[in-house]
């Protein structure tokens, strides 16, 4: 059985998102091998009823988006469908820019985002890890759960994703300038 099938089996069994790290450890493989196997699995699942959801750290299996209505009828739990304006703004920034610091989110929104980020973390739509440079600060990323709510399997399926990345890089330079100024 090849690597992609092994990953598929583990994800199927576990039925929750698994980190790259755990998969590598369980399968005794390197990051490189994993990075090669995931697109293979993705490709093999095309045309299937199951799809692979991926963010920067984790992978997960879920039903295909064409099945969503049929399955929605089967589920008993009510899924939230409405997002407030603040949640919407913040999620959009995290989706296109994540991993992104709170300072950057605040800068773009022009307001303090503490409350709204806490709320999104609790709902499991975003996740955070300590900032590489400043351990007291965090950077925020979309969860695979957020992708599944949006019916996409990875971030570059978002509209204009690559165009926006370029624009962001341009803005980023200016933000950096501002930040340096405030620190000095």
């Amino acid at each position, binding site marked *: 059985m090849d690597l992609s099938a092994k990953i598929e089996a583990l994800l199927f069994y576990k*039925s929750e998102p698994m980190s790259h790290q755990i998969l590598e450890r369980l399968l005794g493989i390197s990051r490189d091998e994993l990075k090669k196997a995931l697109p293979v699995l993705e490709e093999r699942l095309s045309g299937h009823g199951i799809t692979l959801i991926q963010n920067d750290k984790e992978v997960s299996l879920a*039903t295909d*988006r064409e099945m969503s209505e049929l399955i929605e009828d089967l589920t008993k739990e009510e*899924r939230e469908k409405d*997002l407030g304006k603040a949640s919407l703004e913040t999620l959009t920034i995290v989706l*296109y820019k994540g991993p992104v610091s709170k300072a950057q989110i605040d800068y773009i*929104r022009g307001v303090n985002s503490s409350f709204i980020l*806490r709320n999104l973390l609790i709902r499991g739509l975003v996740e955070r890890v300590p900032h590489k440079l400043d351990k007291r600060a965090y950077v925020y990323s979309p969860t695979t759960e957020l992708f599944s709510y949006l019916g996409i399997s990875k971030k570059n399926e978002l509209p204009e994703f690559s165009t926006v990345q370029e624009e962001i890089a341009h803005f980023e330079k*200016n933000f950096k300038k501002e930040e340096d100024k405030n620190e000095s």
Partner: protein
Amino acid sequence: MVENYRVKLESFEGPLDLLLTLIEERKMHISDVSLAAITDDYLSYLEEAESVHLRHTAEFILVASTLVLIKSRSLLPNLKLKDEEEESIESLEEQLMQYKRFRELSVYIQNHFGKKVLYQKSKTPSLEPVFSPTAEITKSNLLSAIYRVIQSLPKIEYVPQVVMKKMLSLKEVIDSLTERINSALSVSFKEFSGGQKERVTIVIGFLAMLELVRRGVITAEQQKHFGDITMGRAEVDTPHY
């Protein structure tokens, strides 16, 4: 004062949301020209909010002070701004453009969220629980863990919010200023804003003063007042982002 737009202030997510909405309602592009054009509306929103508890008050007021810089420059073209003031104007424009972009992108998120959900398995493997403690579970480790939890509880921030106790209406200020100018004809901005230390009052007073300068009400004294205006402006904090 213009009172065309009567949208509820609470429905705005923050100063950028309000600014962008005002600019878009006028079908303008983001620039210092459009920002100067909507400054009065922006301030009257703030004024109206005086009795309402407004979220992000501090942020709203910081942006107001940048707007006043922009408006002042548009009213007095030969007004020289300091470098950091120029930068705060530029930075506000950039911020707005970026905010606008994300707001456009958020439409897709809004339309798709929860519509076509990819579902995980509804059941997890039913594993029989087996008591499996690890060496980490000791009373002292638990105590330090619960203290980490307590320490990371979000603190209620008692940041002295920029109070918007009493924001004099722009009209009131203009009336009062006009009256005093008529009687004294040599009132200075500093005297005018006198004991009122609240930022918004100063901002509004300052703008009103400029408005009069533009209308020519105090042209005769312009040279003299010009110096005072500069001093008045120095009291207005430059926003930091």
